[in-house]
């Protein structure tokens, strides 16, 4: 992210919405060349509102009041359904505090509506020489957790025109950021335990981050002979990011009033965590020339060299070019008479970008620690190698080819772009798992090459332009991306240990293929699943058969298949209708195809054990009288704590259509207030109103939004950590907001 020209290390929600003037997204290599390796995955340019010179002072106020309700509770079985599950499983009986006739809806007791209030006041304006912008905001959100942080992002710059050459400027920008976060937590005695005397605990932690960035930019910008526009830029940049953290935890807090403020006085064990320190730096050189002839033909050539501290010595520098050309077809003489087309521009480009997104110190290898006690009083910490050094760790870089067409028709009432790209990423940087016999579990390496190719189309149209007071605009964007692992550095075609398969998505899923449930009298159960039972999940067998038709072996690891996760099509849409000051708008998104992974339905979370041991989500399970069900018999064979192959139940069809906001507003300018400087708008918005056409939402009632990485928010195990999943996390909310915007 780049905020007003300086790379921004905070997060998007730290920026007040009202301060944002515009957001631009840069995707192709040429556009991202100026940002180098940090822009390898695209760049979000955020420009904030600054006052303008000579502008009269302007005050803005916006207020919001919202109610947040959970989108949907977890679809848990109620009392009678759970009693039936426990009986069907025949493994557990009621404990001393359980009875069959109790039916408590715990989520109903637990979840409350959230209230959100915010007020923002801003003042901006300008004098003859400068501009200013000042704002203050207040946010009260009863949903957020307690944590205090302080961030400041600053930049200063100086610019000088070189007097001897017209159009030549030299500019230095220095950016300095500082972030600090303090957290504290306290758990009183007996809380969260079934034993009232369980000791109290408390902890504090601090995180500090500093970041400095300096850019030296020499730029030349001049129009020759009225037709030749030349812009040349040379850049030298240095950047360093440092963070460190520490924390302390204690047991046996002597007084509830102390909470976490005086850990040193605790009665029990006090431990300081290992603390952390990380520093990484970047140096870059860049040169770019842009030439535009008569606003019709343009060509840009860039060359950039980056060096990063996180890569191995000898592999730290990478030099890469980018070139792009554009043809503004509309400005051609033969296009002047075609009035239907207002804008037509063709662009094509080739560029390389590099990526060094690995953690600092990855090339050095890592030791992990294990604490141990010798007897009851002697303590020591042990170390062993868990990550190998990699003296050959180099840049990951992508070569992107793209071609795009921008157009506007019918008096700019219809505009859009179509873009096609192929991006090959070479020397992909990932953590590689090693077999146990190497003695070490993993190391970070350049493991192979992937290709992303896709097409993006976006259209925007003004369908009705003030026809008897009605205005209607709509926009849609569609995209389709295919990710494919082209080659692995090891030369393998399949790397099951790491889940990499040449020819498939790098985050493909490798699991058995669910083909239903074993019914009574289905043949070969005892051969394919010795020890199995009718009612267990049936998975595909890919082995051989004997001449008499019987399978030659039982189902095993060789029967796992690769499941591709790329959606067929994704996109978003929005529309706005207005009539005399009243406007209705909506924004939504959709996906066709793809796979949604929900760890809630699988063996990693504890919400679907199906053994009757814990509360269970409501699933339709097999019994001898309910043989059409999808979920297995609760009394069947278990592996770990769950029915065998339950992991196959966590893959859902990823299609959905989701409305993100629907908003109804009323602009009072025309109706009530005649003062030209006063603008006022009231609105009512529903955020996250509904989801349609989703297999997951129809079955579970919950939002399709992923909220975890594959190994997060699970009780045990999980899937590949790079895959995004719906996990056991705070549920998403549906928000109803009333607000007012006022400018005077």
């Amino acid at each position, binding site marked *: 992210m780049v905020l007003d020209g300086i790379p921004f290390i905070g997060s998007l929600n730290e920026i007040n919405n009202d301060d944002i003037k515009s957001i631009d997204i840069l995707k192709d290599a040429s556009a991202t060349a100026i940002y180098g390796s940090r822009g390898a995955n695209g760049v979000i340019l955020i420009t904030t509102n600054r006052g303008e010179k000579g502008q009269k002072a302007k005050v803005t106020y916006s207020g919001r009041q919202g109610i947040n309700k959970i989108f949907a509770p977890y679809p848990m079985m109620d009392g009678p359904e759970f009693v039936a599950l426990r009986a069907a499983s025949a*493994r557990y009986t009621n404990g*001393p505090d359980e009875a069959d006739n109790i039916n408590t809806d715990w989520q109903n007791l637990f979840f409350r509506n959230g209230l959100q209030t915010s007020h923002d006041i801003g003042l901006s304006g300008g004098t003859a020489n400068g501009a200013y912008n000042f704002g203050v905001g207040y946010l009260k959100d009863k949903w957020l957790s307690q944590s205090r942080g302080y961030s400041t992002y600053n930049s*200063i710059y*100086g610019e*000088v025109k070189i007097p001897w050459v017209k159009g030549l400027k*030299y*500019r*230095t920008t220095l950016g300095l950021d500082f972030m600090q976060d303090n957290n504290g937590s306290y758990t009183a005695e007996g809380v969260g335990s079934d*034993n009232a*005397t369980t*000791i109290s605990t408390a902890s504090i932690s601090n995180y500090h981050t500093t970041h400095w960035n*300096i850019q030296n930019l020499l730029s030349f910008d001049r129009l020759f002979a009225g037709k030749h526009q030349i812009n040349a830029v040379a850049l030298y940049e*240095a950047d360093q990011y440092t963070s460190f953290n520490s924390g302390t935890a204690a047991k046996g807090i002597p007084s509830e009033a102390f909470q976490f403020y005086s850990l040193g006085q605790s009665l029990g*064990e006090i431990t300081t965590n290992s603390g952390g*320190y*990380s*520093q990484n*730096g*970047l*140096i870059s050189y860049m040169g770019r020339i842009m030439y535009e002839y008569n606003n019709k033909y343009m060509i840009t050539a860039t060359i950039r060299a980056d060096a*990063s*501290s*996180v890569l191995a010595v000898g592999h730290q520098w990478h030099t890469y070019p980018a070139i792009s050309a554009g043809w503004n077809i509309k400005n051609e003489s033969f296009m002047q008479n075609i009035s239907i087309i207002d804008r037509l521009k063709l662009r094509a480009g080739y560029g390389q970008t590099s990526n060094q997104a690995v953690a*600092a*110190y990855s090339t*050095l*290898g890592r*030791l992990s*620690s*294990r604490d*141990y*006690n*010798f*007897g009851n009083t002697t*303590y020591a910490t*042990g*170390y*062993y*190698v868990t990550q*190998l*050094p*990699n003296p050959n760790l180099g840049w990951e870089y992508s070569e992107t080819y793209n071609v795009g067409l921008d157009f506007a028709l019918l008096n700019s009432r219809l505009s859009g772009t179509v873009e096609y790209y192929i991006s090959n990423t070479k020397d992909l940087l990932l953590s*590689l*798992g*090693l*077999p*146990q*016999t*190497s*003695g*070490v*579990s993993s190391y970070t390496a350049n493991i192979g090459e992937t290709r992303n190719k896709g097409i993006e189309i976006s259209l925007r149209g003004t369908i009705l332009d003030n026809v008897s007071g009605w205005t209607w605009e709509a926009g849609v964007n569609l995209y389709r991306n295919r990710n494919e692992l082209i080659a692995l550095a090891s*030369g*393998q075609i399949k*790397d099951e240990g790491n889940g990499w398969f040449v020819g498939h998505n790098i985050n493909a899923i490798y699991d058995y293929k669910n083909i239903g449930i074993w019914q009574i009298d289905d043949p070969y159960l005892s051969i394919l699943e010795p*020890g199995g039972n009718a009612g267990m999940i049936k998975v595909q067998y890919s082995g051989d058969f004997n001449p008499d038709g019987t399978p030659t072996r039982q189902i*095993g690891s060789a029967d796992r298949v690769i499941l591709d996760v790329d959606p067929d099509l994704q996109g978003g849409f929005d529309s706005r209708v207005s009539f005399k000051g009243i406007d209705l708008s909506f924004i939504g998104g959709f996906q066709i195809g793809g796979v949604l992974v929900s760890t809630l339905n699988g063996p990693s979370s504890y919400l679907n054990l199906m053994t009757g041991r814990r509360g269970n989500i409501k699933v339709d399970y097999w019994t001898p009288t309910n043989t059409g069900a999808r979920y297995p018999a609760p009394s069947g*064979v278990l*592996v*770990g704590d769950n029915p065998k192959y339950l992991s196959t139940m966590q893959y859902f069809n990823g299609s959905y259509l989701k409305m993100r906001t629907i908003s109804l507003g009323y602009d009072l300018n025309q109706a009530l207030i005649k003062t030209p400087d006063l603008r006022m708008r009231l609105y009512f918005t529903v955020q996250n109103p509904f989801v349609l056409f989703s297999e997951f939402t129809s079955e579970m009632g919950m939002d399709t939004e992923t909220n975890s990485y594959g190994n997060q928010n699970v009780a045990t195990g999980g899937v590949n950590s790079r895959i995004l999943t719906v996990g056991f996390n705070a549920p998403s909310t549906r928000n109803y907001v009333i607000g007012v915007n006022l400018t005077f």
Partner: protein
Amino acid sequence: MRSIIKSSIATAVLALFFVACTDILEEQPRSIFEPGFFKTEQGVNGGLTSLYAHLRYIYGNAYWYNAGVTGTDEATYAQSADANFKVMDISGQGNITPTVPGGSTNLWDNAFPAINTASGIIENASAVGLSASLIAEARFFRAFEYFMLVQTYGGVPLDMGAGELKFNINPARNSVRNTVPDVYTKAIFPDLLTAVNDLPDVGRLTGTVTKTVARLFLSKAYLTYAWWLQNTNNIPTYPDAARTDPDGHDAAWYFQQAFDVATTAIDNPGPYGLVSTFYDVNVGSNDRNKEILFYADHTQSSEKYTGASLTYGSGGNADNFASWMMTWNYTEIRSAKNADGTVATPTVLREASQDLGRPWTRMAPTIQAFVNTFADKTNDSRFDGTFTTVYRGNWTKGTDKTAFYYGANGLQVYPGDPILTFLPDEPLIPITYTTGAGPSNVGGGTLPGRADYVISPSGISRVTYPGTWKLSTYRTDNAGGLGQPNASITRPFPIAKFSELYFIAAEAAVKGATTTTGKSAYDLINVIRARAGKWKFNRAANVAKTDDYSAAMTAATPATPATIDLNYILAERSREYYGEGYRWFDLVRTQKWGELAATYRIASATKGDHTAVTVTRSIQPYHYLRPIPQSQIDGMEATADEKAAFQNPGY
């Protein structure tokens, strides 16, 4: 003009920062260690500590425990068992496969990092100036890991990527298995011989290894290798290797070596020895006594250093939770609040005491354990010192302060009274069992005049069986209440005991080693049996008992050397080490697994069923080796044929 000067100055000041700091490309970590740390003294010491710490991931881990006990004549799976426990029983409940290996992967996953760390210490230690005895500790661990690996999987790789027995920091993605004799003669024996030579007599810290520990494993390695060379029952090995010793000795030589090393250790015990009674060996208040040579330590004093939660154990890798497996759900026992038998209330609550503990009900003892192995329950204190047969009311330790409840036959039971008893022998009058769970809620039966519900040995089932005591929870911070029964066990988990030296020497003697005076197989076993005859505490009756039946015990030992045979030694081993994780290894070494564990009897997992059935196991010769975990096969960069050849046959 002013603005140009101002902006020039500003620019000039800023440009001072232009000074290219190329040292921002250098990395200096300040909170992590990288492998270079192993070349420092602290690093090497830290490596040694991590060797001890890794023991927790294998010993005390419930799944590794399962691999050592389930499927033998000692135990089978129980009511809450999942596939990992059921397949180890090899009784038609599924097959042991590389993807459902029943816990035998814990060793494979954790041994190689430890071996690599040990090799790193050995290589770097001389540069750092580490003493020979510390290097010997690393050698011991390397040999110990290879010994466990070769017993479990057959031949294993000696080269981890940098050469045989060398510290590896290369990303090695392929691997070649050495043969069994290679592993013994190149790794295990040389390292253990150096360890025996260089280790001190007394540990430098509580629980660190010493000469005696090294001698025990050396003699056991000799013994196991001798059996492998002899291979009387034709059990296949993998990778294929002829049964000849590369060092040129025969099985008889190794049996003799085993006898000699074991008896030397017995005669030079250093600080170790047998404690006076069997009860004292395993009681929680006597942990880290002189008979326990080697253990995976834990402590109640520090949650950070014990590596597990002191309040709620998750059953994770480094926890000590093996004992939970053979603990049945006694918390389901009910007594009646009213005289008419209504208002069933739990009277035996979950408590952090060695008798009770946390029930996971994954494994159950077989009936022959009670009827055959522990036939003598009167003179031999070991039955009482192994099983918990009486479940006493402890409800007042919780919030329930009721004075008494009604038990069997409508009789009153008070706090501390037996609520459910597993009788040691079949009673003269047959027990009246109820159908289903009955008023006790666990299928307990009644005998006239007894307030406690009873179950006899022939009625033991997969859901209701006596608990095991030796490895169970022991805490000193319960403050008179129930304590934290769900916490991981804070006791050290024993790996080797001094008493085993006697068994090793006796077994070597029976296999033909020449004995010395006073150390015939008969003499050696009698030392163990005599000690077993000394009582200290009668747990079943909950009273102290100081009778000494050693004379009766030794008198009962088969008198002539010929009748101390292998089966008798194996039976004695089971009496001494029941449920401690040894059994599978003992039966596999002596090639008696198929014979002694072919069938077993137990009643089903339905409460109230006390009709034992005979279950047959189909143990095949290929089962004598456990499968290589699928994660190793998947993680290797090798052709399909190479991968298939890496796996043990049959899997």
